[in-house]
């Protein structure tokens, strides 16, 4: 019985953590370049809607996922234009993106509510999938979950072990210095803001094509905001993001198991824990010294312009 609950909770943690992971990884890249994009929820919704509708119309899942990714990037490029080129307030532009995504996906998605489309099934990995417990939890999933596993080390390696990753961090840390070294700040920020959007689109597609295969309005139900918090929780690190996303996901599953086995912790308190922890991290990371050490991008949210240099 208890073993079952552990297996099912861990299994659920990966399931509900995966959309959070994608959105968080994307936002880490965008924020590392110095662009704060609060529009994750809007981009995820557009991704979820696009993925579902393309799957419904064409029956081709990979086309659906690609379309969702592109639409996420398209929305992010709008934010990039607003915040990098026009240098408007990034918070305002990000919020606008949320409402835009909610509105457009709701409007265009009207006809797709209640339809059935192709969706992802679990693929068991040979040998690994047969390991007791671990096999069913980790290696008997749909392919998007596997993509999540792979994305984390790839992004980690990219950020810390490649020149391009170093340039990205430099742009977010000190755009002036990066510019002086000949890195194109504007282009770099554009690229990673848009890549961030790709990931949000993918996160949305995971929800509408694998997690709960359907389209209903506002189906991401606030997961984009959780991802915004997770970026801070993860102190802009992809590996901690993985732990954080699965932990946030795990808690959202564990609340139900706890109700069933009657653990006397109120659900509301449990749901609060991740955020409490996020606030704790923010307090902790507010000191500049610690910030530097952990890699919070110093130029986050600050538009860059050469002219203002003195």
């Amino acid at each position: 019985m208890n073993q079952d609950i552990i297996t099912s909770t861990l299994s659920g943690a990966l399931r509900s953590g995966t959309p959070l992971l994608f959105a968080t990884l994307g936002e880490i890249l965008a924020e590392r370049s110095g662009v704060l994009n609060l529009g994750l929820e809007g981009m995820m919704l557009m991704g979820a809607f696009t993925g579902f509708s393309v799957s419904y119309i064409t029956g081709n899942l990979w086309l659906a996922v690609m379309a969702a990714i592109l639409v996420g990037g398209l929305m992010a490029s709008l934010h990039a234009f607003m915040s990098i080129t026009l240098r408007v307030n990034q918070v305002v532009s990000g919020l606008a993106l949320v409402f835009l995504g909610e509105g457009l996906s709701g409007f265009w998605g009207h006809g797709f509510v209640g339809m059935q489309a192709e969706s992802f099934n679990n693929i068991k990995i040979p040998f690994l999938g047969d390991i007791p417990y671990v096999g069913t939890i980790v290696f008997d999933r749909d392919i998007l979950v596997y993509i999540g596993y792979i994305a984390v080390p790839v992004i980690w390696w990219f950020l810390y072990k490649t020149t391009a990753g170093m340039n990205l961090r430099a742009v977010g840390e000190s755009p002036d210095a990066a510019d002086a070294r000949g890195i194109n700040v504007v282009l770099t920020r554009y690229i990673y803001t848009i890549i961030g959007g790709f990931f949000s689109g993918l996160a949305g597609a995971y929800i509408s094509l694998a997690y709960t295969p359907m389209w209903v309005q506002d189906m991401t139900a606030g997961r984009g905001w959780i991802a915004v918090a997770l970026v801070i929780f993860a102190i802009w690190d992809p590996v901690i993001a993985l732990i954080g996303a699965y932990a946030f996901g795990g808690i959202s599953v564990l609340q139900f198991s706890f109700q069933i086995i009657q653990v006397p912790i109120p659900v509301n308190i449990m749901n609060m824990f991740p955020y409490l922890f996020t606030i704790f991290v923010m307090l902790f990371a507010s000191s500049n010294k610690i910030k530097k050490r952990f890699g919070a991008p110093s130029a986050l949210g600050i538009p860059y312009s050469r002219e203002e240099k003195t």
Partner: protein
Amino acid sequence: MKSKFLVLMILSGIAILSFAAPLKIGFIFVGPINDNGWTQAQYDGGVVAIQKAFGDQVQIKYIENVPEGAASLNVLRSLASQGYKLIYATSFGYMDQVIQAAKEFPNTIFEMCSGYATSTNLGEYFGAMEQARYLSGLVAGAMTKTNKIGFVAAYPTPEVVRGIDAFTLGVRSVNPKATVQVVWTYTWYDPPTEKEAALSLINSGCDVLAQHQDSPAAVQAAQQKGIYAIGYDSPNMGQFGPNAYLTAPIWNWAAFYVPNVQSVLNGTWKTSFYYGNMADGLVQLAPMSNLVPAQVQKLVNAMENEIKSGSFNPFEGPIYDQSGKLMIPAGKSATLDQLLSIQWFVQGVIGKISNQ
């Protein structure tokens, strides 16, 4: 003498004009009209049925996705000031704003669904969903093999608690050994969360799921895991789990809307608290799917007739709460007031109402 005649002429002119002009009816909905749930049931039974019944006599406008709370007041005001004389507010969270709007527009009739405030131009309407919940409990109780039934529930409000109690009374009347495990999701509408709640119940051994949620995620989870599910709101939930879906307690709002509009057209409308039931047709059990064996269907239909005729009431005593305390003694039934404020679970429910 002449002036009196003139007044009479004008009055009769107005009367003729108002007779000829269609009645303008406004609806505000909390979700999209095709949500396969609450709003769709309101739309089908409201907008569609009224249009069909009254044709040119009415002119209907509906507004979707009106957020509950403060924002709805502007929508109500704009409808009323555009001459909509009969306005339906179809979700509990509009209540404070409807009360305000009814004060500001005394010549407009407001009808509020699932609230409790009435005034001279504000009526309330809702229905005894517990009757259909009881019948769906009969189905669940007959279909379970593990004797463990799961209930995915939104918030511990009296409406939801009442439904769970009625459902459990139904379950236990055919299967006294079965229990109903409740999990709270603390959301009306969040497909992934509802699905996780459903999967947790399935993992703990439940083989039939019921729900008080507005998305079909629980039905979908049941389909994936090869167990049974009972929907809610609208029979359309069945399309998300053809091998899981058994039936659903559903709303047929036309049973309220059509006579209500008629009374406004006739000029006989008076404020009231309408609480419909299965006999009115407001509350129904959706047709049972082929998965439900014939003898179970027969039993359910027989009980449905008894409920409709008034010879049976699900909340007839003796009814005990979870701790075994007698709450409704033999020979008595729960009163409507008791039901509308119920905050205890009957015997057979596993789970807690959080504020206990």
